[in-house]
């Protein structure tokens, strides 16, 4: 049966033959790419797509807008899903921007957590000091931007408890982290004060193992995996945008889930 939507006078079939080489050269990805650069970018920003830096600036502007929208949508009282302890993956999945054989273990006995920026009490913290603060546990999903995930069980001090204890300026917009593996990172204050954002000392009820960030790492249930720096060495509370390792390479900064 003839389709109800077929027009009475069909277009001339020769048009298809005329453009066959072009049609053959079309690929789905190429089409998407072309659509993005020539279509949306020009429309949104009016930039010159022949200049790659202009395109990059435009894309970064969109990414920053995305960050702002995500920050607006973030509900500080809404909890991410939690799971029973029986679902904890033991051991957790190792991940870093380098191979596991290049992990440099941190000496917990001499390790100190340095504080800087808008914090009243900047005395450095030892592992024992941190263990002396109220501890809590959470079983949450680690979701990587690459697409994999696993369920992990973390114990430590909520970042809110810690920031309140050291007299941090909770009105400052950023909390920045430095690590022993040179992986700077930073999060927004709303996320830092969320009940599922933690300075983790333990995994699955055991002291963190070397490849997973011993002695201290950040774990937040409301952001992608790359916002969870391991082997923390310092925390800064600041009014200046600190960026981060992947953010410098163009990854979104807010990275909420």
């Amino acid at each position, binding site marked *: 049966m003839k389709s109800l939507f077929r027009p009475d006078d069909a277009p001339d079939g020769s048009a298809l033959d005329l453009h066959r080489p072009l049609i053959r050269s079309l690929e789905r990805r190429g089409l998407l790419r072309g659509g993005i650069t020539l279509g949306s970018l020009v429309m949104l920003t009016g930039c010159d797509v022949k200049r790659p830096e202009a395109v990059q600036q435009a894309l970064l502007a969109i990414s920053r807008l995305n960050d702002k929208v995500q920050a607006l949508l973030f509900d500080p009282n809404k909890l991410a899903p939690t799971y029973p302890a029986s679902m904890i*993956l033991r*051991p*957790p999945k*190792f991940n870093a921007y380098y191979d*596991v054989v290049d992990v440099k273990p941190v000496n917990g006995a001499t390790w100190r957590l340095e504080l800087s920026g808008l914090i009243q009490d900047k005395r450095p913290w030892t592992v024992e000091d941190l263990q002396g603060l109220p501890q809590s546990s959470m079983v949450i999903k680690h979701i990587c931007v690459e697409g*994999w995930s*696993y369920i992990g069980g973390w114990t430590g001090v909520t970042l809110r408890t810690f920031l309140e204890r050291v007299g941090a300026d909770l009105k400052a917009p950023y909390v920045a982290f430095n690590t022993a593996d040179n992986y700077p990172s930073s999060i927004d204050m709303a996320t830092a004060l969320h009940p599922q954002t933690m300075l983790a000392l333990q995994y699955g009820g055991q002291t963190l*193992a070397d490849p997973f960030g011993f002695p201290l790492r950040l774990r937040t249930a409301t952001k992608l995996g790359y916002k969870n720096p391991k082997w923390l060495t310092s925390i800064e509370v600041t009014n200046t945008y600190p960026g981060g390792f992947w953010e410098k390479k163009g990854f979104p900064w807010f990275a909420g889930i």
Partner: protein
Amino acid sequence: MRFPQPVRVGDLLHRLVLQPVESQIILGRVHAVIRDAHGNVMVVMNFGGFYGFGGRLIAVPIDAMVLLGQDMEVVAYTPEQLKTLPTYKASAETAELPDDAILKVGLAKPSH
């Protein structure tokens, strides 16, 4: 060093076994963990099937394998070398390790 981590034998069973390449080709699935006649701990996996099902059983030394999250990888043998391994058959000299036994297994390089 691949930072061997303690893992329960029961937590290794039924894991996918992957080839350590970006495309994460599935080689098989963990069937059992055994101690062979020479006292070596071996992972018995089905190999040569589809998506970890079917194929035949082979025994791979646990030291040749690493943990990649919920999966395992064979890092010390190529798929061609695995093809040449004999088909595994349980015998009086092999013993399956209990689920609660704890082994130490190294960690895989991140897969990106």
